[in-house]
């Protein structure tokens, strides 16, 4: 924990977990989609569903989806901003099961090109979040470090190819998860780095033949 985790962050109230954390979940979903959404469907689980409205959780998630930071005073009017931007937002209460944190949301976004992506993430206190699912892949990462999501075809050498580019960029890998749906099918690398991966390296990774998409995730 850093000093500015204790005295800080600057945020819109009323709740670190139900407002700031929720906003960061919206920002995460937007980063995973990789473009501005035109539709958003938000499933609120547990305490998020029960006490969310009073804490502005729904507004905060929409604010994040629109790209607002947790300290953005416009967060309060996020619904109006969504309407002005032509983003259709729907909500429902969901039950994600007993093993999921009580402050969890599933956010599914649709881009203008029809692309759909979804995340499931929890707000675990103090504005900190934990992502538990990205596009159906079970994952576990918080947003404390710059994170690169590399969607690719599962094949020998894929990890080495990406790691070589990161090594050339002198980007130190702090943590890494790799997983796939089925052998030889779609796979996902979640790579947390100590510093931001430079744009040229992200482009190079995207250019690898086995890579289908690269999504940098950096949430304030």
């Amino acid at each position: 924990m850093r000093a500015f985790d204790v005295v800080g962050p600057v945020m819109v109230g009323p709740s670190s977990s139900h407002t700031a954390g929720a906003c960061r979940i919206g920002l995460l979903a937007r980063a995973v989609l990789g473009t501005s959404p035109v539709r958003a469907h938000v499933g609120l689980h547990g305490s998020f569903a029960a006490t969310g409205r009073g804490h502005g959780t729904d507004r905060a998630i929409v604010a994040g989806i629109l790209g607002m930071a947790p300290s953005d005073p416009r967060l309060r009017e996020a619904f109006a901003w969504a309407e002005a931007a032509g983003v259709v937002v729907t909500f429902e209460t969901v039950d994600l099961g007993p093993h999921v944190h009580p402050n969890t949301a599933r956010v599914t976004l649709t881009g203008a090109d029809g692309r759909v992506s979804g995340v499931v993430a929890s707000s675990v206190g103090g504005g900190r979040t934990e992502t538990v699912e990205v596009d159906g892949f079970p994952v576990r990462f918080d947003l404390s470090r710059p994170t690169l999501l590399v969607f690719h075809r599962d094949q020998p050498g894929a990890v080495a190819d990406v790691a070589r580019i990161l090594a050339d960029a002198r980007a130190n890998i702090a943590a890494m998860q790799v997983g796939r749906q089925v052998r030889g099918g779609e796979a996902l690398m979640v790579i947390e780095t100590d510093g931001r991966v430079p744009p040229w390296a992200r482009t190079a990774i995207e250019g690898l033949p086995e890579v289908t998409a690269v999504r940098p995730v950096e949430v304030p």
Partner: protein
Amino acid sequence: MSTPSLAALADAATRASRRIGQIVLEEEARETSETPEILVARMADMLDVMRESVAEGLSGTARSTSGLVGGDAQRVEACRRAGCGIDPAGVFAGAVARALAVSEVNAAMGRIVAAPTAGAAGVLPGVLLALEAEGHVPTDRIVEALFTAAGVGKVIAARASLSGAEGGCQAETGSAAAMAAAAAVEALGGSPQAAAQAVAFTLQNMMGLVCDPIGGLVEVPCLGRNAAAAGQALVAAELALAGAVHPIPVDEIIDAMGQVGKALPVSLRETGWGGIAVTPTARSIAERLGLWTEPPKPEPVDP
């Protein structure tokens, strides 16, 4: 990695003939590779946001989305200016007014500094900005005292908890008050040991405070508890500056607060299932707002 210790932090400051705030700043600079100057400037920015929150709250325009709270900070401030109330020109009333102001802004979805949480955001600015204004402490000492507060908060987070959901209000406004008490002691020239004593007294005096928010909102009793916690910080700082020494080491008291937090039933830890949140009137308020959730039936207890 060993568990952080507030006694060790105070000892390190004493041995180095520095204040806890200075040690925390130096440690932060080492661990983040940022210069102390940059970190001080960033903390000064935090103080500026705290000032803005206070100003917004005192203006009386902050109304919570539920309509339940708003306007009391302005009332207290008006009372002070009119010379009514207790010690209108002093730090105490200044802290109460400012703590309420920030909490009202928080409840109205305005901008605040979470210190350490949004729910307790009024406590630290309440105490420190009152010390600056009514206590005439120079601003640079206030900024340094925010590092004292951060250092105390880090230890409490590691040993116990800062959150109402985990440890009740004694963990949330209690931790904020402990941070503010230590910060106040150092800002007023007290020793690192006295700052640690202020933490001990604060947590002891707030032990067992429950979290029972009406409708689950961060409004009632949260606003009043922010003001109360500011008061508790001043009491503890007063004792510590006078040289009072608690017979129990501060780290043991922090641990005890953590244990008490775990012992609190879930109904009294930010669920709105106990305390004033389940009074008949609170229930009807919550129902009117569409925020009532029925508390689960209690487990039968063995005779």
